């Protein structure tokens, strides 16, 4: 039995290795994750770093109305520039991130102790401007409270009288955990790469076999038809594992080559050990990916039809990984019972160098392999029926 299955596996491997174009497409998906993530880290890393290091450039209209405010800003290393004639359209156009408008009656209000209104013009939806906007806001607020406190002191009131609540911010997010939001997207790319590595091979071996008219003669050979299904399933696994390896190597290269310390202010602990662990945790997914895609592609009449189904099959199990980047889920038992979801949480844990329960690894692997087994059984039954011939 093993021998005949291996004959099918060998033939599919040879056949599909010669189909350079289709496995190269699969390979592209393996590279996609690391390249995209590397690009995003570089882009965002640069933005964060530049904004922190550079002085805030603040275009101000009516600077002459508030010399003491301007002096305060310049004291705080702000480069005050004359604002363009129409600051609002300049902000809309994206020429400047933020602009300050000081009205003519500012000085009068200031001298008489009334509230002076200034306008800060910005676009809150522009992500790249956020750092500038919040710095400008903070500076204006601290100037306001500084002057306010001075005034109270002059009138003999203790500044503490108006400061009823003092907020002391204790942000537990280390720079590292902020950077790890990026890493949370990793499981998504890894699982997607596994599915996409297997799908061209499976499509060709199932729907393609029917389309070419080679399925019927193949099934007349003296071996149980179910073994044909198993052979095809197994033959896709090396391609999926290859893609998994390339993706992981790609991520390792991104983290190794990019100056992460400089870009994100952290060093990422994605070492060889973590890499190997993630690889092993993902192996059950390889089995599941090959089984589920074999089953679905066997229903498709043509490779084109299979090509419309399989991308979704790969997308659905990888989507929770994307969600995990924004909604962290604790590694509880129920999460391990959902194939591919459990692994995504485990991968995240490895990346964060959190302590990992061996029981969780085992449970997620067993459940995933069990599901793959059930699907394989259905595929075998499908091949034993008459439907498989016509699709």
């Amino acid at each position, binding site marked *: 039995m093993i021998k*005949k299955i291996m*004959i*099918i596996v060998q*033939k599919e491997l*040879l*056949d599909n290795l*010669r*189909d350079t174009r289709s496995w190269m497409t699969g390979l592209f998906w393996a590279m996609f994750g690391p390249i995209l993530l590397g690009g995003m880290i570089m882009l965002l890393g640069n933005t964060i770093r530049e904004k922190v290091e550079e002085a805030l450039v603040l275009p101000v209209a009516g600077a002459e109305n508030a010399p003491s405010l301007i002096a305060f800003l310049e004291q705080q290393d702000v480069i005050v520039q004359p604002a363009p004639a129409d600051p609002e359209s300049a902000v809309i156009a994206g020429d400047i991130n933020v602009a300050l408008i000081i009205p003519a009656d500012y000085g009068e209000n200031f001298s008489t102790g009334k509230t002076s209104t200034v306008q800060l013009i910005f676009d809150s939806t522009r992500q790249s401007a956020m750092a500038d906007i919040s710095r400008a806001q903070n500076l204006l607020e601290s100037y306001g409270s500084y002057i306010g406190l001075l005034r109270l002191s002059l009138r003999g009131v203790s500044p503490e009288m108006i400061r009823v609540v003092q907020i002391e911010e204790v942000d537990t997010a280390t720079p590292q955990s902020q950077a790890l939001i990026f890493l949370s997207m990793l499981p998504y790319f890894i699982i997607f790469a596994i599915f996409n590595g297997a799908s061209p091979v499976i499509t060709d071996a199932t729907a393609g*076999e029917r389309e*070419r*008219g*080679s*399925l*019927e*003669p193949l*099934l*007349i*050979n*003296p*071996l*149980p038809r179910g073994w044909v299904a198993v052979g095809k399933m197994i033959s896709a696994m090396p391609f999926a594992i290859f893609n998994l390896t390339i993706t992981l190597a790609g991520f390792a290269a991104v983290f190794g080559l990019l100056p992460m310390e400089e870009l994100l202010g952290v060093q990422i602990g994605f070492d060889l050990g973590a890499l190997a662990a993630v690889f092993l945790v993902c192996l059950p997914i390889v089995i599941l990916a090959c089984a589920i895609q074999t089953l679905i592609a066997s229903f498709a009449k043509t490779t084109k039809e299979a090509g419309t189904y399989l991308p979704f099959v790969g997308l659905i199990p990888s989507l929770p990984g994307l969600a995990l980047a924004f909604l962290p889920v604790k590694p509880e038992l129920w999460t391990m019972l959902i194939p591919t979801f459990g692994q995504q949480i485990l991968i995240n844990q490895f990346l964060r160098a959190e302590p990992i329960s061996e029981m969780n690894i085992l449970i997620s692997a067993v459940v995933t392999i069990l599901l793959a087994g059930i699907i394989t059984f259905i595929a075998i039954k499908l091949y034993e029926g*008459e439907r498989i*011939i016509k699709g």
Partner: protein
Amino acid sequence: MIQVQGLSKSFGKVKAVQSVSFSAPDGQITGLLGPNGAGKSTTLRMLYTLLKPESGTAQVDGFDASQTPIEVQKRIGVLADARGLYPRLTSRENIRYYGRLHGLEGEVLEKQINALLTLLDMQAIADRKTEGFSTGEKLKVALARTLVHNPQNVLLDEPTNGLDVMSTRAIRHFILRLRDEGRCVLFTSHIMQEVAALCDQIVIISHGQVSATGSPDDLRKQTGKDNLEDAFVAAIGSEEGLA
């Protein structure tokens, strides 16, 4: 030796094959003749284990096709209606794959492949990928694949379909040769000439049923017609599907 007894099969409401019985002895060519859609291919498909009959039995060398499919598969070589090759594999690799699935390997297999390549005059295309082969070249590869395990029973579904005159002649000679080797050859066709030229025994099928059976001479006598074409028309009761 092939024996078919009371074989029936429906697809939904369509009764494709109804109670078909015939036998094809060793050392003879038996032709299943009938118009398109008469049930020839369905009958063959039940014989070569692809479809399960609803009732009746199909036996090859005494083994039942639905009870012991593997035993039947070992004893038959089938050129099915679908005869797709693997375009990225060479002729030799295509043939070798089937040989290995039949349990052949090593020197024995390679010798057998070489013998078939010579026999079918296809050494020139032996190590070329089958992508872009002509219909005739593809058929040769499919035929070699069918015979790689040296089966006693050979089932050919419309073997000369789409071939030019020269290729058709070559295939007919090849079929005669298989008979002379003592094999049981069962083939389907809707081409009168071909059936008349090759068959020792003809089974005429129309509307899923056997309407006449016997040697060409028997059929002429049974229907009282002088030529086989008229006999055929008389047997199926219409002129549809004749070529």
